[in-house]
């Protein structure tokens, strides 16, 4: 019981710091904010339920007024802006990612990559695009165009989530709740 709670709290903190620290290099020279990677990792490492709860806790505090979203954003403004679909999508993405890793019991790196891709890329972008479509008064295909430039980077992020999860599985097999 305590372990669930502390993992949720600490991974919520992890998402926060990944938005606060400077961008990291994706691969020689391309910087990314690691926050969305953190959200994928909540799913791949903690599993569906705890991963989603960690993201929800993070959003709870951020919307209440702490500038923890990458770029120093926070408060109710994030729900009123064009990224609202993504914000709402974050916990859902973590849940989908975690579900795939929990139930598709192949090599954890593969499962984590696929989970992160389907949850953190496909599902998240569907919700994000719907959000942008509503907020910017554009059709869905038009909104999808706005999300397109980030597609390659996001796919690479999912691959990184796979690799990190695999490394964690090797280093701390007992800690990987998604495969407990």
């Amino acid at each position: 019981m305590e372990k669930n709670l502390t993992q949720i709290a600490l991974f919520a903190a992890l998402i926060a710091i990944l938005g606060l620290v400077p961008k990291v290099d994706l691969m020689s020279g391309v910087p990314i904010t690691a926050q969305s990677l953190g959200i994928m990792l909540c799913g791949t490492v903690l599993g569906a339920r705890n991963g989603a709860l960690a993201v929800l806790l993070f959003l709870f505090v951020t919307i209440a007024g702490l500038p923890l979203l990458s770029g120093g954003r926070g408060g109710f403004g994030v729900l009123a802006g064009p990224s609202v679909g993504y914000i709402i999508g974050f916990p859902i993405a973590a849940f989908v990612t975690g579900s795939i890793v929990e139930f598709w019991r192949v090599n954890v790196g593969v499962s984590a990559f696929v989970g992160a891709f389907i949850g953190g890329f496909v599902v998240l972008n569907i919700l994000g695009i719907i959000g942008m479509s509503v907020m910017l008064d554009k059709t869905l295909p038009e909104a999808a165009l706005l999300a397109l430039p980030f597609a390659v980077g996001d796919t690479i992020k999912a691959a990184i989530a796979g690799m990190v999860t695999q490394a964690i599985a090797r280093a701390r097999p007992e800690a990987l709740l998604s495969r407990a």
Partner: protein
Amino acid sequence: MSDTPAPLPVIKLDRACVTLQGRKVLRDITLTLSEPRIGIIGRNGSGKTTLLRLIAGLIAPTTGQVRVGSLNPAQDRKAMLGQLGILFQNPDHQILFPTVREELGFGLRQMGLSASEADARVLQMLAAEGRSAWADAPCHHLSQGQRHYLCLMAVVLMGPQTLLLDEPLAGLDLPTQARLSRRFACLPQRLITISHDPASVRDCDRVIWLEGGAIRADGAPAPVLTAFEAEMERIGGADADTDLSD
């Protein structure tokens, strides 16, 4: 380990000051470091870790100059990698990769070696140290002392001429302390050891006492450490330390 045939570059600080978050952490540090074994002693909060980071080039001086040989450590980062290595206090805050092989190879690849060249050197060093079995081991499976060793190997592999050691023996059990100390004594590099414990720096050629961000004493170990220990005893005798440093 390779020998270092060339003379060690001199480390010069000229009125270097460091101000961090509004606080003056280092004031007017002027030093010329050329001895093979140098110790920097000070209590917690004296600025010694900042001094280490300054010499290593991880931070730049707010005013004043720092030079390692002819290089400016904060700016010539790539050249510095082969010049100066740092061993931080806590291996868990330093080990970045899951396996020993990857952790040891990281610095070499960052210096420009190809993955296969780096790997070859790593395996060569592990064999020379009698630790070939470590190659594919997860870093997590190493004991605390072994992790200190791992970090040392990772830094030495990059072939630096100077090594900065931050509290190298802190928190280790006595056998591990003895082993590591022996290892350090054999290293051909110049060693600059930062510590709050006089025992770690007693065998140095020169000891510098840092207090409140400034140099309090500088010279042979015996007199400096005697004065240091006396002062620490005096401070410890008073019931102070109630101020919040922020």
